[in-house]
């Protein structure tokens, strides 16, 4: 009864059913959590903040702290300035953050609140203590998606803090790269850092939610955990030899902003998910002065070994992938590299580039594939009904489809509301690819075992 999706493709113009995206502010909130001692601040009705915190909590299994302007009927008519002033006062008096990262909502955008002007007013009224910062990003919910909101807040970090640094590095200084890691888990950010540091480079990663949303059980609730990029580090972005943007949608604009403000060249890469993406990431690090150590070559070799050992189970298998564009493109390449056939690729995030990139990755296989940006899961379900797949990759919202069509399903991306461990175990890098491959293999072979007639049900596969 949960399946309300008809087989014939419905012509739709005015409506989204079972979305494959959400709104900008939640992405901005997640990004802001990756600044050390930062309190994200939602300038809108209190429900927005509450929903975003709950949703992030469900994925990260961690308390998520953020404040809200708690708009009232009055603010929706006369503007939210009094709320933001009072809110900043409360925040700095009670919660004492180093940074407040304000993001807007559909409501405050529509009524036209000018955040820099209000923050300026707060400064004049001495609401913002000396040495504390308020940054902001405009994140109208009716433009883009959560990925765009994430990108906007990352960009804002660069525009508020990045500056040209004229002093030459000393010969003893380690070379520094800046990395915008994309809308990925803290486990992934931790792994990107490990890989980078293994090449001998120093890294400034922004945002960095490792140490914020993957903290150990200590018996205490720490309002501002140890992790997160510091303001000091952000001010020193100009010391980087390059800024690597991992993922075009989530990270590109921030890297461009660093380039514009601090004269640090940008490198736009895919997310380092799978073998190709990780290779290109490490090659870029090497190009920027890193040394690829034997240990990483060994990790790569192990991944290739696993791919070889299991290729027969993947070749020719049809896969549908949905979620955020940066994730989908990287996963598509990895599936393609494994010999699978990605037949349905769908993101809710708008952007013409998605289809172009997906087509490029698929090459000759693109001809038969359904590729759609600005889509929804109703459409994906219709595609799958019309052309079934062997495997579904995506966030938790795929489970309705997986059940209705009885498809093996591997959870990857954001949000994952019904499983745990993803915040601690990475998907990026060679080790992440090993984990991903092994989960995909488990899903395919569990299904094969389940469906095998008794005489074909075997111990060795």
């Amino acid at each position, binding site marked *: 009864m949960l399946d309300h999706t008809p087989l014939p493709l419905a012509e739709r113009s005015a409506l989204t059913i079972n979305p494959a995206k959400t*709104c900008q502010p939640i992405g901005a909130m997640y990004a802001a959590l990756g600044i050390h001692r930062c309190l994200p601040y939602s300038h809108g*009705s209190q429900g*927005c903040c509450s*929903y975003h915190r709950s949703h992030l909590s469900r994925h990260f299994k961690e308390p998520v702290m953020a404040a809200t302007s708690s708009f009232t009927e009055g603010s929706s008519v006369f503007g939210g300035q009094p709320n933001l002033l009072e809110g900043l006062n409360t925040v700095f008096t009670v919660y004492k953050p180093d940074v407040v990262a304000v993001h807007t909502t559909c409501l405050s955008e529509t009524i036209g609140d000018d955040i820099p002007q209000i923050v300026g007013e707060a400064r004049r009224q001495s609401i913002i203590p000396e040495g504390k910062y308020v940054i902001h990003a405009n994140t109208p*919910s009716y433009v883009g998606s959560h990925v765009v909101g994430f990108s906007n807040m990352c960009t804002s970090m660069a525009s508020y803090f990045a500056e040209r640094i004229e002093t030459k590095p000393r010969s003893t200084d380690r070379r520094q790269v800046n990395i915008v890691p994309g809308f990925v888990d803290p486990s992934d950010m931790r792994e990107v850092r490990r890989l980078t540091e293994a090449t001998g480079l120093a890294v400034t990663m922004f945002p960095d939610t490792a140490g914020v949303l993957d903290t150990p059980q200590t018996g*205490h609730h720490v309002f501002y955990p140890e992790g997160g990029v510091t303001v000091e580090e952000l001010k020193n972005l100009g010391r980087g030899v390059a800024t690597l943007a991992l993922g075009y949608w989530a990270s590109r604009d921030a890297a461009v902003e660093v380039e514009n403000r601090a004269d640090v060249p940008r490198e736009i890469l895919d997310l380092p998910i799978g073998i190709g993406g990780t290779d290109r990431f490490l090659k870029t690090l090497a190009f920027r002065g890193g040394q690829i150590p034997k240990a990483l070559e060994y990790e790569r070799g192990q991944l290739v070994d696993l791919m070889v050992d299991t290729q027969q189970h993947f070749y020719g298998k049809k896969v549908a992938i949905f979620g955020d564009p940066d994730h989908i493109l990287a996963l598509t390449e990895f599936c393609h590299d494994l010999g699978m056939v990605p037949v349905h690729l769908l993101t809710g995030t708008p952007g013409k580039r998605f289809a172009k990139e997906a087509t490029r990755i698929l090459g000759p296989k693109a001809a038969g594939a359904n590729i759609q940006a600005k889509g929804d899961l109703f459409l994906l379900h219709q595609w799958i009904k019309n052309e079934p797949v062997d495997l579904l990759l995506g966030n938790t*919202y795929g489970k309705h489809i997986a059940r209705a069509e009885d498809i093996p399903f591997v959870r990857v991306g954001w949000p994952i509301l019904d499983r745990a461990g993803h915040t601690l175990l990475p998907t990026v890098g060679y080790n992440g690819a090993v984990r991903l491959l092994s989960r995909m293999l488990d899903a395919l072979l569990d299904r094969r075992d389940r469906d095998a007639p008794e005489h074909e049900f075997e111990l060795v596969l």
Partner: protein
Amino acid sequence: MVKVLAGRARQVARAGSGATIEMDCEKQSVSGSVSQRACTFCGSRVVLYPIADALHLVHGPIGCAVYTWDIRGALSSGPELHRLSFSTDLRERHVIFGGERQLEESLLELIERHSPRAAFVYVTCIIGVIGDDVNAICRVVAERTGIPVIPVQSEGFQGSKKQGYDAACTALMSLVGTGEATGISAHSVNILGDFNLAGEIWIITEYLRRMGVEVVANITGDGRVDDIRRAHGAALNLVQCSGSTTALALAMQKKYGIPYQNVSYFGIDDMAAALYAIAEHFKDPTMLARTRELVAEEIAAVLPVVQECRAGLEGKRAAIYVGGAFKAISLVKALRLLGMRTVLVGSQTGSPDDYQYLAELCDPGTVIVDDSNPAELSSFLAEEQVDLFVGGVKERPLAYKLGVAFCDHNHERKLPLEGFVGMANFAREVKASVCSPVWQFAPRHQVRAVQEQTCQEVAR
């Protein structure tokens, strides 16, 4: 001592020995606080969402639809249209030029494809600001399709969930009374304010059936449009979760003369009290006899489980932070039955009377809070040496971080916690979390274990 936000001093109190407490509740959260509260839209969505054969269309940008998509149990014994997420997904051009056409097309398309019995259109924050005439669109579509199309005035900025409950009740009132109310027993009720999160309504309905009471409409759980349309034919409204549906009960009382009764189905005491109150209302001696029999039978089945669980829970300390104060009251009693002491109790939306009642019910010294926040809650949890936290989605990770056992008594519960059998489930769930071996590895408990050992050694 726990630091309480300036301006919140009068929203925190301690139960004394009979003294009156004055809680300054029912006010808007302070701007800039990390409030645990949600908005008006959320309140409306909660009440109407479980109507399973209606179309629920969220008119606004995508977020509001996403965050309320199948995130809470609203079990249906039949249609499941409510579990899909429908949004007009307004974009920038609609904010400039209006979203009326978008709304109308969406409604027409969805009603044609899914043939719902009614449609609810949720108005979100910006709709009023951009000036869409939602009422007019709903009227037009209702005429064209022949089903009720009901606007729900749930702009988030109106306030907290409470205002949303009222908007939902107003929407429901436009359905009630539009159906044929013939052939309904004189011993009949509507069930208001139970959301069938994990199948509770089915338990309650079964009790009522055994008592000889007809259920006309279970309005807010496993709900059906046609039942609600004839709900005015019922003889009595049962109101649980008083915050959400009292407005509907009052409106039905005023318009149709139907009396209502506040009930709680949670815990053995309150469940039994609810059933007796219903039987007494109908003044039917045989019904009362049947009820006595039912209560005795059910309690007999449940008590052994409670006793068994109590063994591991005796003397443990509990904290409660839930949406409505009525539930908090039942929880204090239920925990007492398990041998546990409530040392902190709070709600998002309680009234002064609720808090006064709590102050009288709880042991002296119990902390009572209104509209709390994570910093405050976690300080209290630590200071009061709490063993169990009963709360909702935002409280769970907080409890776990502190090394405190947790029971979700909100919409992420997976077992029915109402009715007599619900008490057994609650006991099992509390025991499972409090007595889990994982806590021994949590630093907080290691510290406590060392302290206890030292105490014992000193005593020796």
